[in-house]
């Protein structure tokens, strides 16, 4: 197990390093620079380049960049002068995290309930309902669903606020739009996984022992069926995270995703660089934790170390 954790750790660190280096190279060779368009004379521009350290040779910039990263410094935003990228992240991440965690929790609860329900009612109405919901959920992109929900429930029916992030009422639409894809994914996975477990010998044994059907389902079926869901938590986190880019834009949530997309438009290199590194480290860490958790729950992985 220690071996396994160590291997995953090395791979995760390498992933972060590749991402950091790729982002660094990309950002330095990008066409155009953030100072064009502003009222700058060539001298001011040269001074700005010098101030931000862009006039040094690439390897010096890279070395400085890595050292700064180690210190937890992601640089200064080029657009929002004198604002550190870490400050912007610190200010916006709580909103994104709030949105993301709500979406993940909702997706997990709804997905598991629907999946279990579908499997227990195989071939009946609930099963078909869940299958149809799942296929629609993976087919409608989140940015379309977000606009659609906003149009129907906020603009037409006026049941819920159109945008912003000021209380529970404001969270309902964005959370739902962000999580439907994940709900669908978990529903599909849980249904299949339950169907495989339902006919296992140990379930028959549990029934034969005279356990109540609730106990059989809860202790013997769900517990075993839930394993595959753990494996997709990594990709699901990634999907929710990239989903926040557009959902925050649509619902005017002042989170990281909105700033990230805005930074792309503004050519705010150091902001994009910093935020991409942050996203990358965050996702790699999430994947690492999922791998470790899976290693603990599935003894086969612990032993073979694969």
């Amino acid at each position, binding site marked *: 197990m220690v071996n396994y954790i160590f291997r995953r750790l090395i791979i995760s660190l390498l992933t972060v390093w590749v991402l950091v280096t790729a982002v660094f190279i*990309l950002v330095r060779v990008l066409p155009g620079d953030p100072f064009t368009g502003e009222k700058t004379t060539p001298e001011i521009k040269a001074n700005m380049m010098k101030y931000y350290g862009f006039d040094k040779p690439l390897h010096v910039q890279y070395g400085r960049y890595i050292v700064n990263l180690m210190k937890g410094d992601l640089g200064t935003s080029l657009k929002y002068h004198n604002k550190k990228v870490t400050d912007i992240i610190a200010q916006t991440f709580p909103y994104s995290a709030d949105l993301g965690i709500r979406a993940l929790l909702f997706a997990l609860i709804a997905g598991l309930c629907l999946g279990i329900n579908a499997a227990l009612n195989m071939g009946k109405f609930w099963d078909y309902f869940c299958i149809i919901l799942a*296929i629609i959920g993976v087919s409608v*992109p989140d940015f379309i669903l977000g606009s659609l929900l906003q149009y129907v429930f906020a603009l037409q029916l006026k049941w819920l606020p159109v945008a912003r992030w000021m209380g529970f009422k404001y969270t309902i639409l964005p959370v739902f739009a962000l999580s439907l894809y994940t709900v669908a994914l978990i529903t*599909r996975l849980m249904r299949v996984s339950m169907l495989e477990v339902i006919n296992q010998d140990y379930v028959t044994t549990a029934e034969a022992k005279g356990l109540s059907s609730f106990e059989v389902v809860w202790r013997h079926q769900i517990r075993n069926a839930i394993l595959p869901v753990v494996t997709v938590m990594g990709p699901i986190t990634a999907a929710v995270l*990239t989903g926040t880019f557009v959902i925050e834009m649509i619902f005017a949530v002042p989170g990281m995703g909105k700033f990230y997309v805005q930074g792309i438009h503004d050519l705010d290199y150091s902001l994009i660089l910093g935020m991409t590194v942050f996203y990358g480290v965050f996702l790699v860490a999430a994947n690492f934790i999922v791998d470790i958790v899976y290693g603990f729950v599935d003894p086969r992985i612990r032993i073979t170390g694969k």
Partner: protein
Amino acid sequence: MVNKMLEIDLNDISLYENIARDEKDLNIVVRPSLSYWKDAWIRLSKNKVALISLGVILLYIILAVAGPYMTPYDFKSNNPDATDLLPNAQHWFGTDSLGRDMWERIWMGGRVSLMIGFVVTTINTFIGVVIGGISGYFGGKLDMFIMRIIDVLYGIPTIIVAILVMMLLNSGIASLIIAMVIIGWIGSARFVRGQILQLKNLEFVLAAKTLGAGSIRIIAMHLIPNIMGLIITNLAMAIPNAIFTEAFLSYIGLGIQPPQTSWGQLARIGATVFRAYPYQLFIPAFFISTTMLALNLFGDGLRDALDPRLRGRNK
């Protein structure tokens, strides 16, 4: 020898029952032998949902090719006298805020979206098959090397890589394809490698080796054809994802740039005016969603048909 031990004379005619010629013929169950592909086609053609989905996809492809020729308008010429018109007899899908005909734009955009979806998945699958095939078959250090690269790259989400690449390259179809291919092949490479590992020690590979077939020939002529059904299924399942990624990138302003258009870009433009003119968002949204839905359903049907072992799973 066994017969001698059992002391049975196999030539002893009393051991055998004499059956009439016609009765014997009756007992022979003959069925024309079906190839794998024929068998799959029969199964697919019984699946109504998959067939309807296929019909929808083909209809969209035909309209993307022919649609722009069906009206006298042009997808990029403005008309200040006919802005923001609702769908009507002249403009079947209405016009946008610059007076451009939406029907034209939808199908010109459809060309780009569908083309990118199909081209990206085909390239990804091809690269995946080559790398996965070589890695899985040769094994050893080469496999170690390739797998470590894949392990490291696997943790980075495609969309983030695509965003970075799109920032570097000029926007356009070619850049989008490069951005989506650059790490997009990893999934299929992992998948193909896993399948090759299962197959490469089977007898038919040994037989081919014994007959002197080279490694490349074994991979290309013996191993890959054996997993072709699974590869095609994976390809079909990946197309909606590619269409989604293109739409997503164009939606956040990184994909196709005007005057070129795509469904994602149309949705982006529609989103800016949708409070006043919701149809401008909902028309492209409808085509993106129904295309993905049809492709997902068709992919499911294809998997059930091509991989009978998985039938009924992942529904």
